[in-house]
């Protein structure tokens, strides 16, 4: 549909700017994108209850990890630990061998976290909501207009967010993973409230992200159709590698 340029390998979307592709190759050559994100012997206590114990994972560029388990098994907790919002009681979470707690600012640069709350301000329009997070994370991600297009909410851009449905709010929230340009996507039940078509589009976007050397950790109860993804079953002491 866009006559100019190759598909952008970061995002899988046709890009009007071929230099996106060059930038990507540059980053692969210089090793920026080849990284290992891992956790060892993680223990975490929430409200006097041991939610996670002996949990470990390892994830390298281009791979996805699915977190599965019953409600309350610790999927969200593990994602919050991975994001650095919480610290494990014991155990380490490392990026290329460096503990993420040693340099939180660095870790924040490379991750985008999508939690249960949609972080959408009712008083702002859809475009203002999306642009704010895009501008805050700085350049490097997909342009806001393309991200809105990707989730089919471009026609709602000027609508105040208070009129959005739950699914539309979720889509607004999900645009952050495209506009941030971050390598590590931490998605906590991303398909909640999404219709089937959008869930499929989300799978495609995640697949494209992985192809370009990105990483994703996704807690989910539904099948996202990510065939190559490893699964970490929480609730029993467990570990997985992807």
């Amino acid at each position, binding site marked *: 549909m866009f006559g100019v340029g190759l598909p952008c390998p970061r995002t899988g979307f046709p890009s009007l700017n071929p230099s996106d592709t060059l930038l990507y190759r540059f980053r692969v050559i210089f090793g920026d994108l080849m990284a290992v994100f891992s956790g060892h012997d993680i223990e975490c206590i929430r409200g006097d209850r041991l939610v996670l114990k002996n949990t470990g994972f390892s994830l390298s560029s281009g791979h996805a990890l699915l977190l599965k388990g019953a409600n309350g098994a610790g999927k969200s907790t593990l994602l*919050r630990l991975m*994001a*650095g*919002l*919480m*610290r494990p009681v014991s155990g380490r979470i490392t990026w290329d061998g460096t503990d993420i707690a040693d340099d939180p*600012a660095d870790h*924040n*640069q490379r*991750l985008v*976290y999508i*939690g*249960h*709350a*949609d*972080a*959408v*301000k009712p*008083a*702002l329009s859809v475009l*203002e909501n999306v642009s*704010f*997070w895009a*501008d*805050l*994370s*700085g350049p490097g991600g997909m342009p806001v207009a393309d991200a809105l297009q990707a989730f089919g909410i471009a026609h709602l851009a000027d609508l105040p967010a208070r009129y959005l449905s739950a699914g539309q709010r979720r889509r607004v929230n999900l645009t*952050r993973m495209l506009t941030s340009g971050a390598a590590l996507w931490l998605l906590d039940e991303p398909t909640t409230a999404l219709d089937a078509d959008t869930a499929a589009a989300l799978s495609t976007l995640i697949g494209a992200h992985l192809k370009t050397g990105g990483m994703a950790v996704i807690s989910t109860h539904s099948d996202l159709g990510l065939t190559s993804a490893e699964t970490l079953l929480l609730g029993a002491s467990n570990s997985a590698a992807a």
Partner: protein
Amino acid sequence: MNALAVMFRREMRLAMRQSADSLMVIAFFVIAVVLFPFGVGPEPNMLARIGPGVIWVAALLAAMLSMERMFLGDYEDGSLELLVLSPVALELAVMIKVLVHWLTTGLPLICAAPLLFVMMNVPTEIWPVLLLTLLLGTPVLSLIGSVGAALILGARRGGVLLSLLVLPLVIPVLIFAVGAGDAVLYGDGAKANLMLLGGVFLGALALTPWATAQAIREAVA
């Protein structure tokens, strides 16, 4: 720097779209002061005597009304944890929030104050110094309030708790501010009180963003 400008624009925009919040704070300020002549009687000398103190206490309580909302909205809709994860240093993000809080409550309070000076028969020679104390003191309310607002996140009945946490801490502001007015009336000059007030402001500016940021990190963990 650019990210801070982005944050400032968004906070201002949100405040402008919800400007009723600011107006209510001002309305509360005015009404609280207006109650005093009814309560203590309209004797002009009496009003002049208590005027500065009453106006300052009312400003304090009015500022308290809006403090609870400083982080609560962002906490409830999940924006706060994303701000913690954003590339902007949380301490700077906190300072932007405090600045916007002051611009939308402290500054309007200062603008409304002269009206209340007239109403309370405050001697005109201490108007400038009282306005100056408000200019130095209201930012302290926003700064110290931000620590309280971050600490009450997740608590039940946060607003009441916030008052209990913050009001004792702002007593020095009240003492020096009202003292400055009295000092001018008694011919001592307000310099000492104003410098102490300025010191409180600078101390709060240097310390509270760290405390607030840490409290926010605890709240979202």
